[in-house]
């Protein structure tokens, strides 16, 4: 049960020393399923928004990466309509030495630095490349519309 030990330890550390702007807690009755709230990074079109994510640790964790998905609607070239995230460490670049904390930090970093050259949502990426200003404007609008902390 080494895996459970690791997960408990991670939860403990997340509670004791939380990541600024990220709240991750396992739901009651399932230590592998986390509700995550992430603040949009300042200096980005997502600033001021609070985004909901779900994070699931599969049976093989930490040998296999966690499954993470945005539940809040996002306008971002590497996040698709279903909230799925295109991020290398969630796929082939996963390392068992990475943790929930590092994964969430990487996702937050992805919000600050969208990568339209490796898109998941093609239409968004196209917009991002042809008219970045408009794309950022849309992203800001979406943040206002869907990710207001009061909602």
């Amino acid at each position: 049960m080494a895996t459970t030990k690791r997960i408990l330890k991670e939860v403990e550390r997340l509670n004791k020393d939380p990541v600024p702007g990220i709240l991750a807690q396992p739901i009651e009755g399932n230590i592998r399923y986390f509700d995550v709230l992430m603040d949009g990074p300042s200096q980005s079109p997502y600033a001021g928004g609070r985004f909901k994510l779900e994070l699931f640790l599969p049976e093989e964790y930490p040998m296999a990466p966690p499954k993470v998905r945005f539940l809040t609607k996002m306008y971002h070239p590497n996040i698709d309509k279903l909230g799925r995230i295109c991020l290398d460490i969630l796929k082939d670049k996963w390392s068992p030495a990475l943790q929930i904390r590092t994964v969430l930090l990487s996702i937050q970093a992805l919000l600050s630095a969208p990568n339209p050259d490796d898109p998941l949502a093609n239409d968004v990426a196209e917009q991002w490349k042809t008219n970045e200003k408009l794309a950022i404007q849309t992203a800001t609008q979406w943040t206002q519309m869907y990710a207001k902390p009061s909602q």
Partner: protein
Amino acid sequence: MYEYSEDEFMAEGDDFVYSASDYSEIDDGEESAEETPNQRSQPVGTQTQNNTFSAGAGFDDDDYYGGEGGEFEPVIASHSSKKPWEVDFKVFDPNELRAKQEAIIGRMEPVLATSKDATTLLLRAYLWKDEPLVEDYLTDPEGTLTKSGISIDQTSPCTMSGDPDFVCEICFCDGEEEEYFAAPCGHRYCTACYHTYLVGKVQEGASWRITCPTHKCKMLVGEEGARLLLKDDEENLLRYNSNLTRSFVNDRDSFVWCPAPNCVYAIECHVARSALYTTVPSVECKCGNRFCFGCQIADHMPAPCYMAEKWLQKCRDDSETSSWMKVNTKECTKCRSIIEKNGGCNHMTCRECRYEFCWVCMGSWAEHGQHYYNCNRFNEESSKEARDSISETRAQLERYIHYFTRYNNHEQSAKLARKLLATTEKNMEQLQRELTLSWIEVQFLNDAVDVLSICRSTLKWTYVLAFYMKTDNQMIIFENNQSDLESATEQLNDLVENPTSHGAIEDIKRKIIDKTTYVKSRWETLLTDTALGLQENRWQFTI
């Protein structure tokens, strides 16, 4: 496809339980164990037991791949026996592949003057291309090692324990009783986690490319380290070793796996990519599969790879469409538009050029007068002319269909030849019984069928060559060779199919043997001619 076969042989090759140091002591006793159940039995006497086929003078030096590790040493049978269309190749079974790797590593170890593990990893990282490796390593040993993810420090990997400060960053176990392992980079993880990590990678098919589990760390775990961690896990150790052998073949341009299902053999052949335009490197695996080394599809002599590929593509794209067009459409005799008649009477008006004509005879409608619905004007001058003037596109289509039909015919006949083999065996038994002939005396039938099927395959591809060939005198010579072989093959086919209906057995036997010899010589003539012709650029091709 190889997974099954590799596991199969790995389960039998017992040398893998040896440690790396006594790895080279492959005992001879296991030769007998390498016969796997899925290996087709070889007919005695019809196939040479020697691994090297069609040995001969070899290519010029610049035909070889530059700087690939290991020398290629086909056993030279006789220089004069090598035919112009043959290439040198060697078949390797899994044990021989391992021995080959060991030999290359053994040869390079003193050159690089480093440890065996480092030499092995360097060779693998350089895809066994020894020349660039030696050059880089002798110029900058440390840089070369670091770039390849290999430690400069050459200590043997081992597991340790006894550090009270140790914490495994994977499972968070800690304390001095925890046993841990680290790749040369020094990132420590408990052996249990390291093992699980390694197993996951091995089951994904990885071998030497497995790196330290730390994010972004490029340090290779190394074979010694991997073997140490997997030492009590025989299944995954075998798999690891089989992955290594697989990568040895896959990483090298001069090796391919035999594409036959469940075949465990690999083939080495040195033909430069650029030579594939004029050479067709047909090889025959020990399992009996004949295939092209260059593109790994079934043997396509005498057509070169690029042509075969183009043709197969064309067949996939065109054959359905063009046969449908041939059956269902006609061309407007005036503007060549392709027209499908989807209803209505025979009085057609071309939508493109408004030409009015009769669908039946293709003649101008104006001459039909009162003969509505009933065209009896077949011999009329104008309609005859209209039919004669087949347009260029239609002619090309006809041409394609012509060659495709013949190509396809030989393909079908080759399939039948395989069936014929079954009946032949029955015939042979029958002859043996009825005429009290010995087994060896009825082998001529088998030989004949063998020759038949190889000729069918060659004939099939001659039509592809002809399809792309520009018509000139050289082509006529080629077509004569082709037609000679074709008619001889058909005659032989007829003789073999009904051996007993052609008179007395002695008579037939002589006839079949004579015909087989003749067909074979025609086959050799054709292949010699095409092989030389391609090298001399004797023909002009439309692609």
